[in-house]
């Protein structure tokens, strides 16, 4: 308490310092006047000083003095200060944004209390089916490894109270879900044990957004009954007692879509996620779960069953993102180090100019401690400004770009907050800035160490800087060149990948192809034919409206299709190929050429004689001799019960090969005609109209046919091309990094050459006077530049080779050690480097020798 009061008083002293000092001086003078012999009073100035010391904050004054002094020093070299600050700010902005992204994806992780112990359970990886009876798996028998089995099944609810119908995203969950994920509530209570016992009053938690939008955040909503009709059981509305409100942004599953309703579910459901007990290794849990699954299985388990596998929830969320993020982090780290190296070179050059000043200081008795404090303050100011600017830039950028970054990465950040600058980011970036400041302030010290006294006598001699100095400088520049080359190689590989991808003939034309989905309510439709007729009428109407044919397909492009065994009539062994059902006109709408025969027509789906279209590769593999048209073929779906063969179909067309993915090497595809006859239909239409306009068309058309039909907003098929998007994104990033790094390296080599040229003006003048040609003088600088560039490039090539090995999985259609890429990167860097040397040296060699010799 008294300590606090003392601090407050100290603060008061600090704020009223001038007034207090005046008062003290007045007092002392009055005292001296009253005294008989003022000598006995003592040294007034010293006493005042001591009084001030009592007030404290001396260090603040000292710091203020240091800062003022350092700022003056920096103002004397405005160009250096500007370049250093701006390049550091850019580097730190890059670092901040990368750290923010890495923090959002890798550090913050999933927004559940013990996310690192959450695992997905795969009963049959990667096989097509899992053993039957897993619903009855006895979780108590593995309770020593599994803390909570987490199960949930999705359910859409329709709520019609209050004038309008709303479709809600619901989850039926078990107790393990609530406990294992640590579901917490913003209001009300968490579901308790009794909510999960059969026969108790049905209860529900509602999502925060639903609470806000539908109930106006009314606390009175808790305890109320809500009437919700589940999608799976139309007409059987459930009356659920609202017991609590979920935390804002609570989600579960593949994306961050918020959950509207969480309904406790008493019956056992199949569990696909577990929370392991603390310290249990996943491998041990896998063994125990495999045993438990064997006991629970009600169907014979195939011999090649691999057993239960666990995959960390975090890894599944991140997917292929981790190497991409790590790659970006390494690249940014490299750029930042290059930035620092460049500023270090600038500081070295500046420190050479300040040698005299520092020598004078040392001669006047200021210690190395003082000098280092001065340097630290200077770099501290630069780094602080740069850090502030960098963070501000990032904050502005992230404000607008973070959704775009999430799209480009193909996955939203797992945390509900998205990509933001939080305290973790601030701490990390602050530490980076501090480290940079300390490292940079050490650089000039290395150059001032020995022989400082010589600096004062140097007038007599031509000044050259020490050998170790030059070596350090050259080392930094060579390092910059090497780093730039590594980034250039990385960037080059990505550019080549993108070009290869864009030139890859996918077999269909994604440009302008839109996809959407129509969903019909499960009401009043007696049979599949009724559904089919709705879909057909919808497709026909939209076709008439947009002028381009609407087609349905069972499988979207850019994803590997389900594999069936395709058997030819002749009784020969079948071939594994993709099997997709499509509606009439599919090939013309998708832009897939028909090599022989015809596209599907409207009658094909319903005729008594089933037909099929196969891809060219499949035709060639099934009938190498040709003549596939008119032959009979069927697909055999491999399921748990064995194999379910489809009907024998006549091949009516042979379509061009389609790559479903960029690395789709097996283009054996089998198509059969079908218009959806269920509640859902995914359709495609080629149109250049903007999405909202199309959406409006679709909704109006659907409303005409079925008032309850729900349409998803259309999106471009090309959006699903995540491989290309991701590669392109990485390419842009790396291109930016490489350009920055190369520019800085060039700036560095230019600066060093220009400095050397200035230092050696006298030498050059003497050489000129003795008859050396300009060309010969240029040669001296170019040779020195060549050594730097050569060493840098050689080191960079090794780095580049290592990089391309690391990037193996990110590149497409390019050899890891791609000679052209390396050659072009080297050539670019060397050309730019020599240009920089040339421009810098030209000035020195052109100077009038008489002037140079007379100066000083």
């Amino acid at each position, binding site marked *: 308490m*008294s300590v606090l009061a003392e601090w407050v008083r100290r603060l008061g002293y600090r704020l009223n310092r001038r007034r207090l000092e005046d008062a003290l001086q007045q007092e002392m003078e*009055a*005292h001296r006047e009253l005294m008989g012999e003022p000598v006995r009073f003592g040294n007034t100035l010293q*006493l005042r000083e001591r009084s001030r*010391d*009592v*007030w404290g904050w001396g260090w603040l004054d000292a710091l203020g003095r240091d800062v003022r002094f350092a700022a003056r020093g920096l103002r004397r070299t405005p160009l250096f200060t500007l370049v250093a600050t701006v390049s550091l700010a850019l580097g730190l902005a890059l670092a901040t944004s990368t750290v923010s992204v890495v923090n959002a994806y890798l550090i913050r992780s999933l927004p559940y209390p013990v996310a690192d112990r959450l695992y997905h359970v795969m009963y049959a990886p990667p096989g097509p089916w899992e053993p039957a009876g897993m619903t009855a798996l006895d979780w108590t028998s593995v309770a020593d490894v599994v803390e909570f089995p987490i199960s949930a099944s999705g359910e859409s609810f329709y709520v019609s109270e209050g004038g309008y119908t709303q479709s809600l995203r619901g989850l039926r969950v078990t107790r393990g879900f609530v406990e294992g994920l640590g579901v917490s509530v913003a209001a009300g209570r968490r579901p308790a044990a009794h909510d999960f016992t059969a026969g108790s009053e049905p209860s529900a938690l509602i999502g925060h957004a639903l609470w806000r939008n539908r109930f106006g955040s009314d606390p009175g909503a808790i305890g109320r009954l809500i009437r919700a009709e589940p999608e799976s059981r139309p007409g059987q509305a459930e009356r659920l007692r609202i017991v609590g409100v979920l935390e804002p942004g609570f989600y579960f599953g593949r994306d961050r879509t918020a959950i509207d309703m969480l309904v406790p579910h008493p019956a056992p459901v199949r569990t696909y996620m577990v929370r392991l007990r603390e310290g249990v290794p996943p491998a041990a849990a896998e063994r125990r779960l495999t045993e438990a699954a064997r006991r629970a299985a009600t169907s014979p388990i195939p011999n090649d069953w691999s057993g239960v596998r666990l995959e960390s929830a975090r890894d599944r969320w991140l997917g292929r993102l981790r190497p991409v993020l790590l790659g970006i982090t390494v690249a940014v780290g490299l750029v930042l180090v290059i930035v620092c190296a460049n500023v270090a070179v600038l500081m070295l050059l500046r420190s050479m100019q300040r040698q005299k000043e520092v020598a004078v200081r040392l001669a006047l008795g200021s210690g190395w401690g003082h000098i280092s404090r001065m340097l630290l303050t200077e770099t501290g100011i630069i780094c602080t400004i740069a850090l502030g600017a960098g963070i501000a830039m990032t904050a502005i950028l992230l404000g607008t770009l973070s959704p775009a970054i999430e799209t480009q990465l193909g996955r939203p950040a797992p945390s509900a907050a998205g990509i933001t600058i939080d305290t973790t980011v601030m701490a990390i970036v602050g530490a980076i800035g501090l480290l940079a400041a300390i490292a940079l302030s050490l650089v000039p010290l290395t150059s001032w160490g020995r022989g400082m006294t010589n600096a004062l006598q140097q007038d007599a001699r031509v000044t050259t800087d020490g050998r170790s100095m030059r070596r350090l400088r050259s080392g930094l520049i060579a390092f910059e060149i090497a780093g730039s080359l590594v980034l250039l190689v990385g960037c080059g590989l990505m550019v080549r990948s993108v070009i290869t991808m864009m030139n890859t003939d996918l077999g269909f034309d994604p440009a302008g192809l839109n996809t959407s989905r129509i969903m019909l309510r499960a009401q009043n439709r007696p049979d599949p034919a009724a559904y089919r007729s709705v879909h057909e009428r919808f497709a026909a109407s939209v076709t008439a409206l947009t002028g381009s044919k609407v087609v349905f397909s069972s499988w979207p492009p850019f994803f590997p299709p389900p594999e069936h065994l395709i058997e030819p009539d002749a009784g020969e062994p079948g071939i594994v190929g993709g099997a997709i059902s499509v509606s009439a006109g599919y090939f013309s709408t998708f832009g897939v050429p028909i090599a022989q025969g015809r596209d599907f027509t409207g009658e094909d789906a319903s005729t008594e004689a089933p037909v099929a279209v196969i891809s060219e590769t499949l035709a060639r593999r099934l009938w190498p001799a040709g003549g596939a048209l008119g032959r009979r073929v069927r697909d055999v779906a491999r399921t748990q019960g064995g194999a379910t063969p489809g009907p024998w179909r006549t091949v009516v067309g042979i379509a061009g090969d389609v790559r479903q993915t960029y690395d789709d090497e097996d283009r054996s595809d089998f198509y059969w005609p079908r218009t959806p006859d269920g509640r859902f239909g995914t359709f495609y239409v080629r149109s250049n109209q903007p999405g909202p306009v199309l959406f409006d068309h679709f909704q109006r058309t659907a409303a005409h046919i079925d008032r309850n039909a729900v349409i998803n907003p259309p999106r471009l098929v090309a959006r699903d091309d995540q491989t290309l998007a991701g590669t392109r994104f990485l390419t842009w990033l790396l291109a930016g990094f490489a350009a920055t790094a190369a520019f800085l390296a060039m700036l560095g080599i230019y600066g060093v050459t220009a400095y050397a040229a200035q230092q050696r003006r006298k030498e050059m003048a003497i050489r000129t006077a003795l008859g050396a040609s300009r060309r010969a003088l240029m040669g001296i600088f170019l040779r020195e530049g060549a050594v730097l560039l050569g060493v840098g490039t050689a080191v960079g090539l090794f780095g580049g080779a290592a990089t391309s090995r690391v990037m193996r999985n990110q590149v497409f259609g390019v050899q890891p050690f791609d000679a052209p890429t390396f050659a072009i990167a080297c050539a670019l860097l060397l050309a730019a480097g020599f240009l920089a040397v040339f421009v810098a040296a030209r000035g020195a060699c052109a100077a009038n020798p008489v002037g140079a010799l007379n100066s000083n």
Partner: protein
Amino acid sequence: MLILRVLAAGSLHGYAIAQRIHTLSREELSVEEGSLYPALQKLLLKGWVKASPAISETGRAVREYKLTPAGRKQLEHERANYRRVTAAIGAVLDTA
């Protein structure tokens, strides 16, 4: 402690405090009078004395220092401490 003791009698300004210490100590203690001021700053900071503006005999603006309750407590504390220590020293000196 001396300053606190002097102020216990009533509020005084700097010169007066120095004079009182001088006379009370029977002119034995006469240090540099100026060192009074850093000491006063410390007491102010600790909250043991309070200052209020006043006018000196020569018509200059000075500050009068007054003991606060906390200062009074501190004085008692230090007095007790001092007595204990001197008593202990005395005991040692007498027996030795």
